């Protein structure tokens, strides 16, 4: 017995040590990938933004870039476009989800799949198809008889970018909202109606609150993606539409002003991370409220 017990006792600490380190070994590969392919390049971008063309380290480049009218205009344009596109996506996506979920019609499944298919396309393809449809030499202008430089002339400006972004990103709102609508038991809708609620009230007070987390999530995701959208803006070719990603492209590729490009890129990243943080916070607050553990809802009792 003793002869057997001794090796067991000797190997036990080694086994415990091995078990303690095993999770770290599993963690190491993804950490290395994140560090190597994300953190390190990001650190290089941040460092580059702090070094001027003359080699001085400091905030001179930042001061120069963030106070320039070009940057301010790009920031404003980016926020305006992304908020506008997201609002459009939320309205259109929610409407489509409502139609597909609650007013079934022949072919609804096909429509749903077609909308889904948009998710698989690269964003620039939408911009390209818009050029063929609504461009100055596009199908619509040809049909209206104007030929090149015809009556339809919105594509090469903010409205063109906005429309293309709404078209491309609507499924990102519609899909989660549709899934949330599908989770609402039909008995709830029936009972709400039997209690005297008209369809609009049922939608407002029963359906939408149930879908609220999905809607908020889709909205935040769309806002995040439209803020960083580059392909659509580039392919639409709107001259006056300079967004932050376009400004990074212009500074870095066209004018070779790397430090300035890095400053704009860092601002873009900070905005994205901030949005993501808001997204997480909104999700947590909503989740808590739905669990009935958070702040008081619109209950009858004020206490």
């Amino acid at each position: 017995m003793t002869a057997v017990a001794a090796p067991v006792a000797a190997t036990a600490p080694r086994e415990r040590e091995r078990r303690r380190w095993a999770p770290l070994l599993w963690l190491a590969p993804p950490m290395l990938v994140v560090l190597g392919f994300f953190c390190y390049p990001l650190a290089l971008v941040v460092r580059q933004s702090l070094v001027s063309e003359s080699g001085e380290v400091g905030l001179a480049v930042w001061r120069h870039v963030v106070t320039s009218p070009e940057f301010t205009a790009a920031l404003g344009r980016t926020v305006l476009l992304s908020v506008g596109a997201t609002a459009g996506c939320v309205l259109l996506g929610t409407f489509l989800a409502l139609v597909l979920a609650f007013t079934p019609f022949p072919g609804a499944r096909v429509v749903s799949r077609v909308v889904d298919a948009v998710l698989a396309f690269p964003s620039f393809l939408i911009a390209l198809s818009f050029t063929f449809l609504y461009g100055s030499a596009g199908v619509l202008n040809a049909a209206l008889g104007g030929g090149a430089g015809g009556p339809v002339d919105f594509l090469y400006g903010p409205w063109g970018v906005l429309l293309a972004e709404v078209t491309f990103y609507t499924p990102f709102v519609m899909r989660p909202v549709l899934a949330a609508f599908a989770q609402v038991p039909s008995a709830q809708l029936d009972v709400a109606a039997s209690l005297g609620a008209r369809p609009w009230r049922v939608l407002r007070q029963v359906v939408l609150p149930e879908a609220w987390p999905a809607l908020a999530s889709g909205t935040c995701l769309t806002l995040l993606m439209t803020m960083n959208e580059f392909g659509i803006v580039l392919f639409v070719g709107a001259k006056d539409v300079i967004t932050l990603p376009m400004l990074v492209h212009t500074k870095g590729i066209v004018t070779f002003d790397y430090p300035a490009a890095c400053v704009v890129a860092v601002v873009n990243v900070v905005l994205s991370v901030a949005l993501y943080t808001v997204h997480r916070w909104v999700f947590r607050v909503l989740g808590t409220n739905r669990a009935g553990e958070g702040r008081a809802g619109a209950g009858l009792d004020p206490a």
Partner: protein
Amino acid sequence: MTAPAVELRGVSVHFGRTVALRELDLVVGRGEALALLGPSGSGKSTALKAVAGFVRPHSGRVLLSGVDVTDAPPHRRGLGVVVQNYALFPHMRVADNVAFGLRARRMPRREVEQRVTEVLAMVGMADYRRRYPRELSGGQQQRVAIARALAIRPPVLLLDEPLSALDAALREEMLAELLRLRRELPDTAMVYVTHDQGEALALADRVAVMRDARLVEVGPTAQLYHRPRAEFTASFLGAANLLPVELVAAAPEGSDGSDGTVRADGLATVRLAGAELRAEPTGPLPAGTPVALGVRPHRVEVRADAGLPARLLGVQWRGTGFRLELELDDGSRLRADVSTVDGLPAVGERVGVSIPDGCPLVPAGAGA
């Protein structure tokens, strides 16, 4: 004469090519409790949905208090509905769930508050008004669902298998609660859908038995239990043994018994496994009609010296007693519920069976 609370006239409901309800005629009086009883797929829930307006009849009319509401949407019908899985609004507190229908009716705030307090007290949930549905047990959720339906003071309360999601103990408790509510709300008509005969017998004034999208039989609860006219009613309501018997000689209803087939006490003579028994015809039995004797398991006596010889096929212990599986000499099988098996022979051995006089006699296959 006041119009009935609910009236269905030849209502049929189709879902695509499936006929979910076939020409249902049904009347529920004011303040009456009617149970729609039947197995899954019998059309009982569809009938309820047709009343509530959740499905549109393919043909027929639905009337509430004499008013044709066939084409009216559910929000114009003013009915209280309670469903199996409660369907409480999960993002609303108990009080808001109960107030939902009152607010939809744009009732003044103070009245809403008053009514919510009143109905929550009625179902014993006054202390839970600030809770969310997920913080309540199944029984509590069902109480809130009932309170929500009652808050709008509906003339008709529709209950679709309201207890089937609860465990046995809670079901008993809620059944007692529903009985109490029935007493407190004598003017509210109830349509109660269930597949549980115990619930139907306990709650309803009348029972409508349904099968395969059709109404098999409707009548007062006691009458349907003791004198079912259809074989299916006898087997589904009370789980009667249906024993094919030979009517010694057919007699028209109302016979004075002079021909010897229907005696002066109203009982007919039938032959089962060679023995003659007296049974009560629950309807006309034209000559040549195959008939079945409905014998409830608890009415079968099993003794060594009883008249009908049988073989004991099996014994099941059921807590309060035993269920015996028996086979008569003519091959008919029947179940008997006894309180003790002391003195009985072993499985496979022969016993004697006694069937009392007065068991219902129904046309075989009726309602099947």
